């Protein structure tokens, strides 16, 4: 039986709950606003407000930079299908560098949701096969139980790993997230080196 698609806010709630003390990089405004609405402002969350295609590269750098820091076992990037496609070359870089703490969770809704729901190329792109072809592990996960299980598995699995979860296209109304990015970066850095 096919599991019903999770909504993106429900997926975000699960990720925030299961990774309360590990760095999480959040992609773009829609995901950030929804995370804020379901989990509040968390010190372990880095909000990448407007850099489409850059969240995964930032995660690669952070995962490499924290490789020797035993407090952090996972650097998680929550990415969308559109943003991943904009910076798709990073999959190849991940295969080369093998940042072992990197976990990418692609919340794939198949559209550019924030701009009106125009389709991305995700419907004809197999992200899992692409990641594997670049030299690292990836798998599809389904539903709340599948997401929970996959994240728990990842806590004891050597990365890099990409998880692809298809999510719905509901867009619950959320207020703008208007904090100063300088403050966002400094808060995150202080949390990292606390």
């Amino acid at each position, binding site marked *: 039986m096919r599991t019903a698609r999770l909504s993106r806010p429900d997926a975000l709630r699960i990720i925030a709950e299961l990774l309360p003390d590990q760095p999480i990089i959040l992609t773009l405004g829609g995901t950030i606003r929804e995370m804020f609405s379901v989990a509040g402002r968390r010190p372990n969350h*880095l909000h*990448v*407000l*407007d*850099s489409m*295609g*850059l*969240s*995964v*590269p*930032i*995660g*690669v*750098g*952070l*995962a*490499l*930079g*924290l490789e020797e*820091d035993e407090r952090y076992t996972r650097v998680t990037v929550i990415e969308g299908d559109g943003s991943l496609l904009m*910076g798709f*070359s*990073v999959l*190849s*870089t991940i295969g*080369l*560098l093998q940042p072992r703490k990197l976990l990418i969770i692609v919340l794939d809704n198949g559209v550019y949701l924030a701009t009106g729901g125009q389709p991305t190329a995700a419907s004809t792109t197999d992200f899992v096969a692409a990641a594997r072809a670049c030299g690292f592990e990836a798998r599809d996960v389904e539903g709340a139980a599948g997401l929970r299980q996959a994240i728990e598995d990842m806590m004891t699995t050597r990365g890099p790993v990409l998880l692809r979860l298809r999510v719905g296209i509901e867009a619950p109304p959320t207020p703008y997230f208007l904090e100063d*990015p*300088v403050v*966002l*970066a*400094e808060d*995150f*850095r202080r949390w*990292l*080196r606390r």
Partner: protein
Amino acid sequence: MTAASAGDTDPRSQAVIDGIERLRPEFVLELPSSTLRAIIGHFLDRPGVRTFPIPREEEGIGILSGLVLAGRRAVMIIQDNGIGNLITALATFPQAYHLPMLIVTARRGGLGEYNSMIHNVSERTERLLDAANVRYFQLDHRSPIEEWAPTVVRAYEFAQITHRPVFLLVNLMGG
């Protein structure tokens, strides 16, 4: 072994190498130019520094940003005709979030350039960076060779002091 370790490194490239070495980098991100062969070759051969290629300049800006957030010492080395690729990434992340970083950028275009279309971007590098409100310093025929290595260090320090990305434009073609 690359050409860089064969003892035939030109004085300008050697000065840039010496300057970057003084930064004690843990990571060097590189996207080659033929003019950067000696410098990149040095770091590819260098034990203790993790040197790796980036396929596009904006991806390098992202990885460099993550390393900076983690508190690591890193430098990116590119050529100037890739500046156009990275402006949006630069403006929306490390500039907006105040992340210090040094991007050593080899000049192309101008006298001695053999590639006709490269001028279109390379000769406008300063204007592109000015338009993006990015600080840069320059090393070329006007700079005494003994100033090159210290300027690499000062440019890195300038980025730290001003909490922003800084470009060091180095002319390795004789201009």
